[in-house]
């Protein structure tokens, strides 16, 4: 079995988020990046299939040079190969553009199973996985919290609201967008990190994949016009002072609420 895992590198969850010069995204200079948290669960889910039997795990990502760090980490965790679509022409792509590029990679790889995260920690849109599945003419399922191989397909559990679950039987090949918490993600071992240095990362351009016309700002159907802080609600009154003064303020409020 061949498994393709799509990874996105996103600003670190604790990174300082300043709006950039033209007000359409954040300032990316000088901040740390990491693998999108949901995608680490997707990679782990793929590695578990590999651990349980015979599977090749290929990771794919799109972005500038810094993305090779994310791919190295994935190889260190146990992925076999990586594909890095590194091309300035991708800048300004919308979700469908990204899905087109990933679909071109998938058509070269012909995976039996595609794993992605449910959403990204930056865009929060959950758009790319179902779009990618459509372009590959595969069924898909999102917010998946359990996968089990059964006959010619998978039996999966999707998370609904309030913790309820939906059981679905899905044919292979298919795309599974995993919910966070589906598994406990492993760390790359020292041995894994050493081995990763010898594993290949294939660099590709949009032209290599035949998607130059489908990606980038010119092809995008949706664009961000403006990024801004959310409207301020009735912001909390902030207690200031020494720890003793703050604690006295909190205690006073708890008493006022009749809870002491």
């Amino acid at each position, binding site marked *: 079995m061949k498994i393709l895992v799509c990874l996105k590198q996103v600003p670190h969850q604790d990174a300082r988020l300043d709006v950039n010069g033209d007000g359409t995204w*954040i300032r990316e200079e000088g901040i740390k990046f990491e693998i999108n948290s949901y995608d680490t*669960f997707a990679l782990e889910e793929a590695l578990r299939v590999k651990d349980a039997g015979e599977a090749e795990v290929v990771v794919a990502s799109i972005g500038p040079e810094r993305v090779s760090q994310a791919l190295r980490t994935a190889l260190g965790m146990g992925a076999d190969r990586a594909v890095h679509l590194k091309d300035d022409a991708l800048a300004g792509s*919308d*979700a*469908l553009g990204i899905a087109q590029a990933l679909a071109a990679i998938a058509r070269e790889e012909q995976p039996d199973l595609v794993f992605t995260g449910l959403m990204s*920690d*930056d865009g*929060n*849109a*959950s*758009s*790319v996985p*179902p*779009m990618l*599945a*459509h*372009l590959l003419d595969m*069924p898909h399922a999102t917010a998946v919290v359990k996968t089990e191989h059964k006959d010619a397909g998978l039996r999966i559990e999707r*998370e*609904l*609201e*309030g*913790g*309820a*679950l*939906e*059981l*679905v*039987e*899905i*044919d292979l090949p*298919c795309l599974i967008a995993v919910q966070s*918490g589906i598994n406990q993600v492993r760390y790359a071992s020292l041995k894994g990190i050493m081995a990763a240095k010898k594993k290949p990362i294939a660099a590709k351009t949009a032209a290599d994949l035949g998607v130059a016309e489908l990606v980038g700002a010119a092809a*995008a*159907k*949706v*664009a*961000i*016009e403006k*990024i*801004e*802080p959310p*409207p301020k*609600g*009735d912001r*909390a*009154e*902030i*207690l200031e002072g020494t*720890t003793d003064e703050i*604690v*006295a303020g*909190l*205690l006073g*409020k*708890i008493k006022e*609420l*009749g*809870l*002491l």
Partner: protein
Amino acid sequence: MSLLVVAEIQQGAIREASYELLAFAARIGGEVSSLVIGDAALASEFAKRGGGSTWSASDAALANYNVDGYAAAILAAVEASGADTVLISNTPVGWDVAPRVAAALDAGFVSDAFDVQDGRYRRRVFNGKLDAWVRSSAAKTVVSVQPGALPAIDNQNEGGGEVKELALELPKLRARFLETRESDAGGVDLSQADVIVSGGRGVGDPEKFPEVIQPLAEALGGAMGASRPVVDAGWLPHEYQVGSSGQVVTPKLYIAIGISGAIQHLVGMKGSNYIIAINKDPDAPIFEVAQLGVVGDLFEIVPALTSAVTAARG
């Protein structure tokens, strides 16, 4: 503008969120038609209550959500209605099918919008820390709308729209619904607690929950909760989770410690009578829903507060 509202059935009734889509459609402006998948009687009801000219896709194979069948039904309704804008709630059904439909239509896709002004849609990004205004330049646009974004419209008195059965040839269903299972709260019922003290990713370490969070909860005679990242990391079992995929709580006092305030957590606790937030990041969204806040080191403040509460109880 011609809009198609995709209503959703949940437990035998049209969801409240579907009536919210009608409000969203009214804000965009234009002619509204609707689609109800899976139940012809409910299609009539939706048509009577503001859905306008309503398409019903009542094939028995659509009684439960499945991606191939629902995508085919929505695409057929877009074709039949000639809609240029499709609205669907950002629920487990909506987020699963809407992007797929958008790709099939070669449409612009706007995910989880909660406002629209002059053709620009507003949505949260970076887990609630920033907002983005986005615009679609495509001939067709699919928008998934955040449940609760706008108050529902229920136009019961406007007279009914026409209901038409949608001509539909279903494709092979490659993802098949088997069953739904209700959540098992596993013995931790936060709904009865007067006070809930919840810890988030900022607590930093699983050992700190019994050391720092639990003692304050106990001192206040309350219960301990947690945000999703804590549960995902395996620091606490799922039954402690407060949020849209965990428990929705409304205690007299909710203390959020080291929780930044992602939307999925806020949905689970914003109905609390009073909210106190303790976080080191002054820009954390949690301070926008809390009434009282402390910007500082939780490991300094929380143990001191626990001692003070214990002392006050005598």
